[in-house]
């Protein structure tokens, strides 16, 4: 034990001197139940001050590792083929013994000082977990043929109503009681469109030649047509 202690101490100090960030992707059902299914091209990018940019591919244990970070403020983005991940802000600052590293959520298009919830903060080595925010949906589906929407369309509804009238009216007429029928017939006779004096018959029987010749402008039916 005595022999081992300085060894352990030595390794600890060497780790503590350089900031190290490990980002792991946990299983987050229902969106991503198995992070092992992520494509091997999934990678994380740590964008520091101009000229500093680290890229880490996804490891077998679903983590990204950034060893040896300099003191700066970084933007961490995770790029995956199938999922969106939230952007994070990672700050590495100098502390009394070694470096302090902290991570927050950040919001695109907002001031850099606008930090969201903290993901973690540690001396030396920071392990954080980042879950995908949503799945990417690449495809636009065309509105296919749907019988309900077809029937609901106004054109078809109007057509259907007229079909109902065409086929339904004779039946309704037949099934009406005789009194009602008489009444209807009376009404039709009185109506402006029916009967020998109705507008319809007047138009049909209009005497064009006589009208052009100026015959009977007063009492005859032509007058009403002229007015219309």
């Amino acid at each position, binding site marked *: 034990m005595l022999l081992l202690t300085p060894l352990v101490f030595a390794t600890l100090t060497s780790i503590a001197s350089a900031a190290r960030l490990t980002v792991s992707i946990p299983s987050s059902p229902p969106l991503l139940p198995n992070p092992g299914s992520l*494509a*091997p*091209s999934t*990678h994380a*990018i740590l*964008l520091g*001050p*101009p*000229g500093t*940019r680290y*890229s*880490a*591919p*996804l*490891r*077998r244990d679903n983590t990204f590792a950034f060893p040896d970070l300099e003191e700066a*403020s970084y*933007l961490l*983005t995770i*790029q*995956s*083929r*199938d999922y969106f991940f939230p*952007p994070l802000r990672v700050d590495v600052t100098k502390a009394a013994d070694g470096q302090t590293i902290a991570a927050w959520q950040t919001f*695109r*298009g*907002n*001031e*850099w000082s606008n930090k969201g919830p903290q993901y973690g903060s540690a001396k030396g080595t920071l392990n954080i977990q980042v879950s995908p925010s949503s799945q*990417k*949906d*690449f*495809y*636009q*589906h*065309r509105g296919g*043929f749907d019988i309900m929407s077809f029937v609901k369309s106004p054109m078809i509804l109007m057509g259907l109503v007229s079909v109902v009238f065409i086929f339904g009216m004779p039946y309704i007429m037949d099934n009406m009681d005789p009194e009602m029928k008489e009444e209807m017939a009376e009404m039709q006779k009185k109506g402006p469109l029916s009967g020998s004096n109705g507008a319809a018959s007047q138009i049909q029987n209009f005497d064009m030649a006589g009208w052009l010749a100026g015959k009977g402008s007063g009492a005859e039916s032509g007058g009403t047509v002229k007015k219309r």
Partner: protein
Amino acid sequence: MLSTLLTAASLLLVPTLAVFADEAWNVDYHFALLGAPKEETSFFHQPNPSSRASLIYTLSEQHALGAVNPRDGSLVWRQLLSSDGIAYRNSFLRAGEGQDVVISGVGHEVAAWSAADGRLVWSLSTEGPLEDVEILELSDGKETAGAKDAIALSSGANPTVQRIDGASGAVKWQFIIDGSDAPYQLSASSTQIFAILIHKTILGYVKLRVVVLDRVTGHKVDEYSLSSENELSTTENIVSVGANSASPMIAWTDSLYTTLKVNVVGMKSMQSFDIASHDDSPIEHVKVHAPYHVNSLSHFLVHYQTATSHWADVFHINLKNGKVEKAYSLPKLAGRGAFSTSTSDANVYFTRVTRDEITTVSSASHGVLGRWPLNTFGVVAGIGEQVEPIHAASEVSVKGDTVSAIRTTILLSTGDWVMLRDGKGIWNRPEMLASTMVVTFALPADAAALVQQLEVEAHSNPVAAYAHRVQRHLADLQRLPSIIVSLPQQIVKGFLGTSADDLTASDTFGFRQVIVCATREGRLVALDAGSPDKIVWNVNVADLQPGQSWEPYLASRIAGVVEVSSRAGAGIQYNATNGQPLAERLPVVPEGPQVPSSQVVLYTVHDGTLEASYNRTPAWAFTPMHGERLIDMVPRPVNDPVASIGKVLGDRRVLYKYLDSNIALLVTAQDSMGTANIYVLSTVSGAIIYSNVHTGVDLTIPIASIMSENWFAYSFTNEASDEASKGHQLVVGELFESLVPDDRGMMGATTNFSGMQTATEPFVLTQTYQIPEVISKLAVTRTRQGITSRQLLAVLPDSNGIVGIPYGAVDPRRPVNRDPTKDEQAEGLVRYTAVLEFDPKWFLNHQREIVGVKNVFTSPALIESTSLVFAYGLDIFGTRLSPSFSFDILGKDFNKLQMLATVAALAVATFIVAPLVMRKQVDQRWRFL
């Protein structure tokens, strides 16, 4: 009312600018490439030690590491080990026997990758560039169980040998080699590690120094030099330094290839063998093929290649006394040959691939165990070109004394990587396309011929034109029989398919254009955009020597003809359909106004100054400020048709666009300040008509820029500051003659305008959007007449995709801090938001991953709605885009069957209803009378 309708329409339209599920895998095409595989880093390996199924692993010239399924040639996984395009001298790929990882070494990085899925297992950076990476095959009990350790040799200021733990990637020990000798290679035996270094003598010769290290402790055990007796003048004559075979050895030849010297590593003596000359032509190179397994027989094969023939000798090493004996020879055969080594238990088999056959022999005796004749490799090559194998890798299964099955992958001289199973072609990967430098679109020669004939008719007198037309129709009659034969098929297709499917029969839409790619190896490769699965033709146009490069320039000025020229040479023209060279006449560049003016202006960069010359006389020069460097210049495309000179507003008034064909966008950088400067220049007068400066820009990240019509766009990455958020930004600027509707400003009623005389400055509206990732290249869709709205194409290197951003989404006229008015809504403008997220539906590549795209080329189709897109770099990707929807073609959404069913239903209904109506009319007549 109209405006609300328009609004409704625009709201409906915006989200549908996307990849449709039914078009996704049909309209677009993609070659997931790796680049030309290297011989030493291509092999079969079992990703899962418990299963016998193997994958082909390769690390290519482009430093793409990938696993290919030997069954169909599809890519299982891929990692790009050099994303910034740096070409490293050395790259290594090793797979330990029975290991589930492959270990790569590129540049300064040793990395272990999971063989089955391509995930990183560990990685380690070395101080100096890597010179060799090996796996310690023989266990010494010091490893983590199940993982074999790796050793790496790096050069640089402190040449180092490191032993790396196979499970964690931690360094177990390292040994710094003293002296100024250049590290060359590593070799290992069961107890020792040998570092071979190159020692340059005073006389300029090369001596081999071997440093022997203890495997477990890393301490130096011994050191000796091999007296190569002044015969080794360069390292190129070292033909092999074996590693991991049962008996590693070093072999070299003299510069004239007359003797072969072999030294078994660990022995201080060497043996020499005379190289018999079989041929008049001198030997071009000598290669050693040895098994890469510790348990196999210690046999090796030496392959001699001349310009016209090749042969091989097989040697055996006696493990007891280290003596090397020549066992047998393989006869001389014409052409190039490729040898590959495979093992089965301890036995070693050599497979020889020549132009016309594959043979397999055992290393023990020269009896042929299997022979498969080859008629063709099944690849497209130039006329009269002999396709030769360059290198091969094989997997043999042996039953008794014969080879029962053999799978061989061969890299051919055409650049194709093919797989043969028992001599029959299984798949073919066009890896030469991974090194595409420039591309152009050309109309196929037959379509172009018709266009030319029509032009002849249009320009001659009516009588001659009529005679010509009759003649043409008579000639067309000859095709009648074939048309009649294919008629039933076409009718069936016409009923069942959609019009967009019908590409093979005729090309009325201009989708079937020939895409010609010039590769770094000096070849022209043509694809058909209509049926892109196969290569149309592939010819060698520049006979490049190793190490030579060319700067090709491709153009198709005459329809049906592709012209290639290198910077130095004159142009040669090729038929676009079959790749036959046309009469070698020099291209006549038409003089005068036929050439668009921006082609007349020639730009050169001289001492950081951009100089423009107009008809070879210097016109103007743009000298950036002190400390500024030019990054990029994008002139407005030569062929950039614009349908409308103004933008119609919602209230039917017009905002006039500033349309000048002679403008260019110039991007410069000031490294000391971290600023990027943007200029819009008039390329006629050299005047700056717009400029902007961005501070805190990361200049190591690409700044992409584009100019088209009356707008420009660029993207950059900036550091957080008081006014800007950290991240990536896209800026879009639009130039107007005046910002007052229905007013042309300074231009007034003038019809003519000269950039030299009047200095009219446009009114520029710009808007900045925060984007989620880096854009490495911008392009814009092009249509025939420019009526269709444009789509901004952005290459996203981080998410391996290309995104098509509708112009409406980045329009600088989007209202800021307020909701759009009715008129603005009618135009389709939405309220400005600082963040522009890339909708996954905008990704042209959808689920595909397009890696290493360097450029995107767009070309108009013959119909106005569609633009053809072709992206190249490492991968090849192409698609068709309709930014304003397919308004002039029936797309997939048009259901022919449904239409036919409706017609049929109406017909039936008419037949049923007709007698009813008839009866009713008759009844009515009776009733009325």
